[in-house]
């Protein structure tokens, strides 16, 4: 599969078909991008489980931090890699072991060897993207900040139940 470009439907299906995200490299520092992403994804209804050996046993945004993917009790759907590209192969092997469905590497993170391993094991792969930005882009929220969503739609955006300034994604809907 070509990882230079993803169709909107591919990304939307991943974000609408899965609810539990293990975030490897989640930070308790409130000014870090991983903290922003975790907070946003939780607000969109995802269960986000932080993984960070240095923070194991503590809490980030009220969620217990695990030392590794293998320690997580819940069933993980998406493994979101907030680490350097060089760490992606080892994390992907763990993701395969815990039977995750998706390996997602953040903006700036790309490892084609890890992608090959994941795909060979039947997992879906996204590289060099941020799930927060993709959710905001496809739901229309990111357009409020003037960002080019690179999508056109003649359908009304879907509003969330939490208030007027919340849009949501729905499976199969542009």
């Amino acid at each position, binding site marked *: 599969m*070509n990882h230079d470009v993803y169709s909107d439907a591919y990304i939307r299906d991943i974000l609408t078909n899965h609810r539990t995200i293990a975030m490897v490299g989640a930070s308790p520092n409130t000014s870090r991008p991983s903290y922003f992403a975790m907070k946003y994804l939780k607000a969109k209804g995802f269960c986000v489980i932080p993984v960070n050996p240095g923070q194991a046993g503590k809490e980030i945004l009220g969620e217990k931090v695990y030392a590794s993917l293998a320690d997580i009790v819940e069933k993980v759907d998406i493994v979101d890699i907030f680490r350097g590209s060089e760490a992606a192969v080892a994390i992907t092997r763990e993701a395969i072991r815990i039977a995750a469905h998706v390996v997602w590497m953040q903006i700036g993170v790309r490892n084609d060897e890890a992608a090959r391993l994941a795909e060979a094991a039947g997992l879906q792969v996204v590289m060099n993207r941020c799930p927060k*930005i993709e959710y905001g882009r496809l739901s229309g929220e990111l*357009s409020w900040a003037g*960002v080019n*969503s690179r999508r*056109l739609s003649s*359908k009304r955006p879907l509003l969330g139940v939490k208030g007027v300034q919340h849009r949501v994604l729905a499976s199969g809907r542009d």
Partner: protein
Amino acid sequence: MIADRKPGFNTLAIHAGAQPDPATGARATPIYQTTSFVFDDVEHAAALFNLETFGNIYTRITNPTQAVLEERVAALEGGTAGLAVASGHASQMLVFHTLLEPGDEFVSARQLYGGSINQFTHSFKKCGWTVRFADTTDADSFRAALTPKTKAIFVESIANPGGIITDIAAVAAVAKEAGVPLIVDNTLATPYLIRPIEHGADIIVHSLTKFLGGHGNSIGGAIVDCGTFDWLKSGRYPTLSAPTASYHGITFAETFGNFAFAIACRVLSLRDLGPAISPFNAFLILTGIETLPLRMQRHCDNALAVATWLSRHPKVAWVNYAGLADNKYHALAKRYCPQGAGAVFTFGLKGGYEAGIALVSNVKLFSHLANIGDTRSLIIHPASTTHRQLTDEQRMRAGAGDEVVRLSIGLEDVDDIIADLDQALAAA
């Protein structure tokens, strides 16, 4: 997996950024004429102020009507994000406020809109920023003007009023070599004629007042982030690469990736300096953009016909329109804007300053005013108006000598445009 189909330019001009209104289903973009937006709760308010989530707080920073305009312009240019502001001048102010610190320098083409020369030379001096001018027809002159303090290079894609087509790729190569962003003012070309991002631009600015709005009814400006510049690499752009004190230490380039520049311009420079666009102006400009491709082609076709006619007129000394085959910049025009060389150009009257004054006094269809890019045909004598604050040397170098008349050709019947010039020249 099938990659998404890329819409064409005409489709983007009508649809980009504009879904039906989620609350009412209104298909045209509503005018959200409000100063402020209620928060869902305290937590939502905090997340918005911390930039942790997307949403509207206050129309000085974001507004849903403005947002559609921003995405529309960004999509037409092929950039990652846009920002609409009060005027073209405001867009330049915000771009440089985001890039520069006191003591910094930038290199600019000297063939610029006279107002930009004033802004760069005088007002920017008060911020401690120094402009060094180069010749937009000579990429090497930009290299020669670089100093260790240079933080950016600025050009106009089609220079106003001289009718010069800038070799953007050649200047972009100098910027890349120097490790500084290339800013292109694309006002006269619009993305219909030239998309600077395809030639190496990193930041694009617009006066939306001109052809994008196109109807002479609203002042506005825009910034487009091309998403091409690595702000973290050199560490010379601390607004983007260092933790920001006014947002609890977040680093823009890390948090917002390839649209960090547009976000920083908005939530720092626009927030603090304040030149917001009115939602009503944003709406009018958006409506104008829907017909940009049609209008721009007609503007160019009319301009070529008028320039050709003028070039044969006995009272006309010269015509500087890059669309004419014998023009010095014709080869660049064919390369950069094969659909047309724009609709603003200058010509020289054999009768000099006095003939220029007489011509602008005698026209009946053309409007004598200081704007360009209107449905109406416009005329001005730069030496006695837009460029009169400049020194004689600056005026000559900007292409605004005594005998020069600038036209902005409108969308009227071309025979009527020519007939008006014909009678006015006869009386001049």
